[in-house]
C-alpha cells in the first residue's frame, strides 16, 4: 500500500483481487460500492507485463482507491462481476484490448474491435496503424480486409526542447 500525493488514493499490488475487492465492498468502514473503472496497462519490459487497475469509489466516505494486479499473457484474473455488475463490460474491454481474460465472466467476448479482428490492440507491440485496413470492394459487394498500405511514413514526434520542463513532481 502506498499513498500517492494526488489526493487520498492508495495503491496496492496483489494476487488476489477478488478477495480484496470483496473486503473493500462489504466492510463497514470502506463500503466501496462503485467500481469506476477497470483498466489494463501494458509494460512490455516487465515479466508480468500487464497490469490490471481497478479504480474504485466509495460514495459514503467520498474517497477513491486504486487496486492493481499484474498478469502476463496467460494468467487469468478472477472476475469481479458478481461484486460490481458494471465490471462486466470493463472486463470485456480488458480482454479485447489486452488479452487478459477473466474466470467466471458471464460473457467474455470482444467489445470494441471489429467482428473478425485478430490481435489485442492496446498492447504495445501492435503498431498504431494496425495490420489490416478495410475497404468496400465493389466486385464482391462487401467490406474486405486487406493488409495495410501506408502512403506516408509513420511520423514519430520527438522533440528536443530548450525549454525547461517544469514539473514539480
Amino acid at each position, binding site marked *: 500500500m502506498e499513498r500517492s500525493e494526488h489526493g487520498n488514493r492508495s*495503491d496496492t499490488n496483489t494476487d488476489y483481487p477478488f478477495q480484496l475487492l470483496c473486503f473493500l465492498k462489504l466492510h463497514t468502514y470502506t463500503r466501496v460500492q462503485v467500481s469506476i473503472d477497470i*483498466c489494463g496497462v501494458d509494460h512490455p519490459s516487465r515479466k508480468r507485463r500487464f497490469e490490471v487497475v481497478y479504480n474504485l469509489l466509495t*460514495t459514503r466516505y467520498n474517497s*477513491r482507491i486504486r487496486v492493481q494486479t499484474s498478469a502476463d499473457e496467460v494468467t487469468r484474473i478472477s472476475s469481479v462481476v458478481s461484486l*460490481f*455488475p458494471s465490471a462486466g463490460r470493463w472486463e470485456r474491454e480488458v480482454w479485447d484490448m489486452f488479452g487478459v481474460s477473466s474466470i467466471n465472466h458471464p460473457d467474455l467476448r470482444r467489445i*470494441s474491435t471489429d467482428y473478425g479482428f485478430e490481435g489485442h490492440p492496446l498492447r504495445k507491440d501492435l503498431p498504431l496503424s494496425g495490420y489490416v485496413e478495410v475497404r468496400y470492394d465493389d466486385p464482391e459487394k462487401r467490406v474486405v480486409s486487406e493488409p495495410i498500405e501506408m502512403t506516408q511514413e509513420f511520423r514519430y*514526434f520527438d*522533440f528536443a526542447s530548450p525549454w525547461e*520542463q517544469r514539473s514539480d513532481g
Partner: protein
Amino acid sequence: MNVTTTRKDLMIVNMGPHHPSMHGVLRLILTLDGEDVIDCEPILGYLHRGMEKIAENRTVIQYLPYVTRWDYLATMFTEAITVNGPEQLGNIQVPKRASYIRVIMLELSRIASHLLWLGPFMADIGAQTPFFYIFRERELVYDLFEAATGMRMMHNYFRIGGVAADLPHGWIDKCLDFCDYFLTAVSEYQKLITRNPIFLERVEGVGIIGGEEAINWGLSGPMLRASGIQWDLRKVDHYECYDELDWEIQWQKEGDSLARYLVRIGEMTESIKIIQQALEGIPGGPYENLEIRSFDREKDPEWNDFEYRFISKKPSPTFELPKQELYVRVEAPKGELGIFLIGDQSGFPWRWKIRPPGFINLQILPQLVKRMKLADIMTILGSIDIIMGEVDR
C-alpha cells in the same frame, strides 16, 4: 374454428446501428414476445476509433483536437479533463480568471448538451417540436463559443494552465443577454412539456432505478441524482472555482424517466445561475499560466539580475508528464467522465484510459427494458443520455 393459438416462438429484431435518433451507432438485438421485450443486448464498437492508442503517441497539446470527438455535444468537458490531468500531475496552478472562464464555458457546454439531449428524447417519444426549439437555443450557444474560441463545436480551447485566448470585448454582455433569454426559453419548455399528459403517460414510471441499484451499477450524473442520491462531483471534489459560486444539486427521488428529465431541466437552470454569478464575479488578470515555461537554467549567473529569463508565456508543447499515475474526473453532463493517466517521463503518456459515463450508464439498459413494451425502449434509451462517440471512443 379455434383462432387462439399461443405464439411460442420469440422474435429477434435487430435495431441496427443506423437509426434516426441522435444516439449514434448503437446496435440493439431485441428479443420480443409480441410487443413485450424479453431481452435486449446492446452491441457497441461501431464508432471505435482507437482514441486510447492514439493518445500514447501524441503529446497533450497534440491530443487536444482529438478529445472533443469523444463527446461531441459537450466538448468543453472532454478538453477540461484532458488538461486537468497534466495540470494535477505537474502541480500547475490555474490563474483565477482562467478558472472562471473555464467554469463559464463548461456550464455553457452543459446547457448545450442537455438541450441536445432534450430534443432527440422528445423526438423519440414522438414530439417533434422541441427538436427545433433546442436548436434555436443551441445556435446561440454556438455563436458564443465561436466568438470566444473560434469554432462552433470542436473548440480546442483549453490549455495546460488555463485557456487559449481571452474572452473578446463585449462577450460578457452577450453572455448575460443569453442567460436572460434562456431562462424564458426553459420556462417555455416547461410549459410545453412538463405537464403534458401525453408526455407523462409515456415517461412516468418507465425505467425505474432504485438508489442502491444505481450505486451498484456505477451510474453517475443525472441518472444517479434522479434516483435520490445527491452526488455531484462539482460539490464533492471542489474543483475549479465552483465553491465560490452559490448553487444547488438538482435531484429527484423516483428514479424513473420523468425524474431524469426533471433533473436535467433543473440542471440547465442551475447552470444559468452559475454562469450569471461567474460572469459578474470574473476577475481580471492572466488567462493562462504565464510562468510555466522558462529557459534552461543558465550556467552564468550574472544575467540573473533581472528576470529576462522568464519571458516565454505558454506551457511547452512537449510538456513532460512525470512518471506518476492519476485518475482525474469531471462532472460531465452525462455523468462522471474520467481519465486514468499514467505518465512516463516524456511528452507522450504511457496509458491514457478514458472512463466514459455513457459506457457505464448503458450497461443498465438490458435490465431496465426487461418487462417493458417495445415503445418504451426508446424512452429509456433516451433518458439514459448516451452518446456513442464517448462510449466507443
